């Protein structure tokens, strides 16, 4: 159990090559749950491998509880990692798999037995301890992988590299619940790498959104949802994505021409490409003349909600309405968005307005 600090960390796979991970500074407190969220190839696995010690960063340091572990080998860092593909030692039983990290560290047999039994009990693997691990289903194999991490009492953090990707949806839910319970019970620092925002938003207290090797924003799920720092975050987080409409400065207000959407402009506004964004969840259908009028071109059914696709000036605006909306495809509708829900982006970055 440890606090993890990434100090001026950066990585390039070859000297002179472009950064796979741009310089960053992060602190993960002990016992927290974190998610690294981003599209494939954004550098999240690189960051995870640096923390676990499988990769040595080209710049900066990794600190566990203030101790510099940058040069330490994986085995002595006391990290547990669960991979995307369930990894089990196929020649061993479930019990032998769970005990393997302790066997490698030369723990006495009685202690190994006790730890394996405790962990198996906790993960619900106790009835199958003597079964060959290779015969298990993918989700159970993933539990065994996790168990190999938990079996060490001094484990500093558990790194989860897209561990739920190959699991069936129903079991995914169970496994996520188990992970959460484990975190609460053992107060283990857990870092989940994923490209699935639902997974990240439901699992982590804090989410690190990455893109092109750069940490774009770090914050709680609510922060990311309400106040995305960049257009990319607004687009990546939330389903459907945030709506963005081209805006321009008119006198002292930023407006979307042809609509009533407008925000007071800050005193000194640099030149650049302006956009106004709002969440589909924050827009409502308005019976009277609203902020924006368009034609419904598509309706997506989403259980208790409906998402309306509304075409306006060659843009498609999405609005989430609860229940069944009275609007029909082809019908003209008017929507309203509260001014405090509007975000302004200048060249892709959010403007902090008063």
């Amino acid at each position, binding site marked *: 159990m440890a606090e993890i600090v990434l100090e001026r960390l950066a990585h390039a796979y070859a000297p002179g090559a472009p950064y796979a991970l741009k310089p960053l500074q992060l602190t993960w407190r002990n016992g927290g749950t974190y998610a690294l969220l981003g599209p494939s190839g954004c550098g999240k696995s690189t960051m995870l491998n640096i923390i676990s010690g499988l990769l040595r960063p080209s710049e900066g340091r990794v600190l566990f509880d203030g101790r510099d572990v940058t040069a330490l080998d994986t085995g002595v860092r006391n*990290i547990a990692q669960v991979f995307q593909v369930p990894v089990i*030692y196929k020649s061993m039983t479930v019990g032998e798999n769970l005990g393997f990290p302790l066997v490698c560290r030369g723990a006495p047999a009685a202690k190994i037995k006790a730890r394996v039994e405790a962990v198996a009990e906790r993960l619900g693997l106790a009835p199958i301890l003597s079964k060959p691990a290779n015969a298990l289903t993918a989700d159970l194999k993933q539990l065994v*992988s996790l168990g*190999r991490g938990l079996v060490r009492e001094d484990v500093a953090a558990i790194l989860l590299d897209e561990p739920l990707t190959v699991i069936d949806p129903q079991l995914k839910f169970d496994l996520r619940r188990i992970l959460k319970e484990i975190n609460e019970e053992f107060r283990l620092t857990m870092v989940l790498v994923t490209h699935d925002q639902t997974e990240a938003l439901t699992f982590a207290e804090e989410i690190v959104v990455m893109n092109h090797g750069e940490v774009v924003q770090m914050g709680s799920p609510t922060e990311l949802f309400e106040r995305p720092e960049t257009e990319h975050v607004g687009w990546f987080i939330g389903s459907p994505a945030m709506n963005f409409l081209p805006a321009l400065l008119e006198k002292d207000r930023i407006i979307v021409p042809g609509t009533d959407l407008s925000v007071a402009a800050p005193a000194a506004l640099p030149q650049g490409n302006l956009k106004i964004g709002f969440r589909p969840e924050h827009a409502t259908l308005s019976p009277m003349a609203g902020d924006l009028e368009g034609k419904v071109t598509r309706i997506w059914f989403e259980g208790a909600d409906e998402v309306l696709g509304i075409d306006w000036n060659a843009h498609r605006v999405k609005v989430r309405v609860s229940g069944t909306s009275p609007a029909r495809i082809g019908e003209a509708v008017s929507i309203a968005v509260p001014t405090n829900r509007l975000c302004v982006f200048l060249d892709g970055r959010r403007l902090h307005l008063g």
Partner: protein
Amino acid sequence: MYRQKYIFLLPGLLVLVAIILFPLLFTIRVSFSSWDVYNPGLNWIGGENYARLWEDARYWEALIRLTFLTVATVTLQYTLGFALALLVWRDIAARRFFRVLFLVPMMTTPVVMSVIWRTIFHESLGPLNPILEAIGIDAQPWLSDAGFALAAVMIVEVWQWTPFMFLLLLAGLLSLPNEPFLAARIDGAGPIRTFLSVTLPMMGAISVGAILIRLIEASKLMETVYVLTSGGPGTATETTSYYIYIRGMRDFQIGYSASLSLTYLIVMSVALTLIAKALIRLMVKDRT
């Protein structure tokens, strides 16, 4: 339903009958005849050939010798091949060069290489004995002493076929997923434990495949013996197929050699099936 499928299968079936079934059935028939150089033809002598074979100590000795040669050389090939494959598996300097170098023996013709090896082993003219003497080891009667001749055959076999093992096992190693090795590192396993707990179990299936292919091939060992020692001195390096060759092609006892071949075929089929089952049970852990 779909009766016409047989029409499409017919050409294939005909070829199969012509090249596999017919020679086999013909051999069975010949083995019950006394066809030889004096009385060629298909007469019927019942099981006489098989009774003679049962008493033929030279045949059974050759079979036991072959078993020893096969098991010993294939074990050596597997061990050496695996070691070489592990050596060039990871990033080392000139990895491509070594990979090609190790394959050269396999690409040479067995007969040609046996001739070269016979020259190397030659007691007075070959280079091997002077080299041994230069490093302080006495010259050895490589091809005229029973034990050394057997060793010479084994050396050539191992030299020629280790690359095949190397190739298959290297392909196997390269196809292994990386995650188990990362997991083993994280779990704190050292190189030996990683090899025993991760590499070897994952290589089980391909190992069995490679070993079986080599066992089947090695059990037909003939041209190396023919060129290197001609089965000698005496019958010290005679293998089953070489003995059958002597009876059939040199003595022209066609009927008798047919019965030898058939017995050999049955013994090999049964033995290799049992070995395959045992190997799979021992080495392949993928079964669920």
